[in-house]
């Protein structure tokens, strides 16, 4: 093995594969530590999205009287938006801070650094699976059974996953260099919650703005979720979905590229 200045790792992806066990262990560590020393533990993963749903349903559905898609209950519409949004936002904020939260690892041991932020997003994914149970309960409550479209859901889940990986990698690496980003992320997440169609259906956006609106990658993801869960009562706006996928792919490529570029200096800067 050769170590040299500015040498790009030829076996980077192979190395990543070799360290898959560390990846698993780190994800497991974050998971088992996540709700330690809390009283209600894993219930937090249920309560938070549930309360958000309640508030959004009351504000947007009852008070603002926004229309739902077809005949779907408003609470279900909101929850189908909250699920991907929570996966995206917890993934993004946890992963962005993951490198500086693992300073001691990064300054004392070698491993492909990509492992750290992605392992934290996996933790967010587990939270997602837990809150998915609420969806099932809601469906039983409203006697609203899904149809064949539900099978397509994993595609949109992975889309949500990749939507958070791209920006997270970029921000995580910037965060090592410029700690300013630590303060930027909560802002992005808060802002994004209202810019994305979480509490309302994206069909209320005027037709001519719809494509522009889909530049927000979460629009395509959330619409996809609703399409799968609500028996197609929210129709899928295909040009918008396509645009969202392109944006997600671009951010993913860009995030990985920026991360790889700065990865070698992490130990010096952190």
């Amino acid at each position, binding site marked *: *093995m*050769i*170590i*040299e*200045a*500015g040498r790009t790792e030829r076996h980077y992806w192979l190395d990543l594969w070799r360290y898959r*066990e*560390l990846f*698993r*262990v*780190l994800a497991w*560590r974050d998971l*088992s*530590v996540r709700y*330690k*020393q809390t009283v209600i533990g894993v219930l937090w993963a249920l309560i938070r999205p549930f309360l958000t749903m309640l508030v959004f349903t009351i504000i947007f559905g009852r008070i603002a009287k926004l229309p739902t898609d077809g005949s779907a209950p408003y609470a279900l519409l909101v929850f189908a938006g909250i699920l991907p949004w929570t996966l995206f936002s917890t993934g993004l904020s946890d992963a962005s801070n993951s490198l500086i939260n*693992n300073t*001691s*690892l*990064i*300054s*004392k*041991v*070698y*491993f492909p650094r990509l492992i750290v932020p992605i392992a934290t997003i996996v933790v967010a994914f587990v939270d997602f699976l837990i809150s998915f149970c609420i969806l099932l309960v809601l469906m039983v409550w409203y006697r609203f059974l899904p149809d064949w479209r539900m099978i397509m859901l994993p595609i949109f889940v992975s889309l949500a996953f990749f939507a958070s990986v791209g920006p997270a990698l970029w921000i995580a690496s910037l965060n090592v*260099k*410029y700690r300013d980003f630590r303060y930027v992320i909560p802002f992005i997440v808060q802002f994004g919650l209202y810019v994305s169609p979480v509490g309302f259906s994206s069909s209320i956006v005027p037709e001519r703005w719809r494509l522009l609106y889909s530049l927000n990658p979460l629009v395509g993801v959330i619409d996809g979720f609703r399409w799968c869960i609500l028996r197609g009562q929210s129709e899928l706006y295909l040009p918008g979905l396509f645009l969202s996928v392109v944006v997600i792919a671009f951010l993913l490529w860009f995030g990985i590229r920026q991360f790889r570029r700065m990865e*070698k*200096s992490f*130990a*010096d*800067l952190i």
Partner: protein
Amino acid sequence: MAVVSENVIVVENLSKRYLIGHQVSASGGRYKYTALRDVLGREIRNFARKMADVVSGRQVVQGDEIEEYWALRDVSFRVKQGEVLGIIGRNGAGKSTLLKILSRITEPTEGRISLRGRVSSLLEVGTGFHPELTGRENIFLNGAILGMTQREIRKKFDEIVAFAEVEKFLDTPVKHYSSGMYVRLAFAVAAHLEPEILIVDEVLAVGDVEFQKKCLGKMNEVSRNQGRTVLFVSHNMDAILKLCTQGVLFESGIIRAIGDINTVVPDYLTSHPPSPEVVDFSGKARPGQFAERVRLAKVCPSEVGRAWVFPFGHQLSIDLSIHAKPSVNEVEVIVGLYSIRGFEVATWSSAVDDVALRLHPGTNTFRIGFQRLRLLPGRYLLAFSLFSNRGFEDGILEAVQFEIMPAAEIDPNKMDGSALVSATVSVID
């Protein structure tokens, strides 16, 4: 065991540069007083510079002045298979930087290294230990971090637990462990690594004496009996002499001596330049970025013109200056006395002696005279650390070197050790 003379590590013209920033503070004597205008001007200049750095994608350095610092400069050496190489040098000589580059944690600025075989490095005991997880869980976590597969760990699990002597507490979160247990467990995991090249940084500095012996034994076994190549950094010359066959001596980033360990260690021991009479700490390497509120300023022998050489039996007395900001009004001073080989001989703590060291803003000087301490002729080092009610504030290892002159009544052939004690004797039979 057959000795294979093959170079497993080849280091060529290795250099590493860091950028460091300095704070130009009022205590540095640059400004007599700080006016709001000055502060604003400085902040705006800093901000403009940082923005320029961000735009050009350079590293952002905190501070008012930026300096390039070469931690390693043009370093070349080779290590053969099965050799145990001791890397020695004073703090800040570049040893740890070298190990970090060898472990691929950081990239060199110039030069190249070729390595043959799997490398494991142990730069810290217990890297990645999580306080909330149990001992059992941490073994798996730490093992994975150090590059072991889960299968390997499972196979060695019992051995690791037995070595660490923590059977009873395996399912207790390690935050409830004593520091001794913690270190034992951490070292036990690391000791069961099986790489071709093992890199170890100063891990013996922690833990009790009994355990240090155990670790040394284990390291010896790994290197001697299993034919692995080991790079070992330590300030403890006895450990270095026991373990290593070859040695490299670093001094401010360059190699000063290289070769057989028995010739390199004496080089190191005599390389300490005699301390000047007044030792100024302003440029000394400190652990971490502390020392904003209280700083060690300087130290000199109490007797003017004495320099750092004392006759045997003479009372050791020093004048220690501490610079304090108004927010701190009392401090605890701990003085560590080390033999030149790196063993701690004695410690003094102002708190244990119940001496209150009150501070006024600015420079405070205290005269510290050590009582009932009779050092044998030889060379010694002093280390200082300061604690406030907030905890650790500042510390300097190897702050001063001094010498106790030989004396007629002390025959070095009869007496070993560092300090002479008195005893009462009575005839009982």
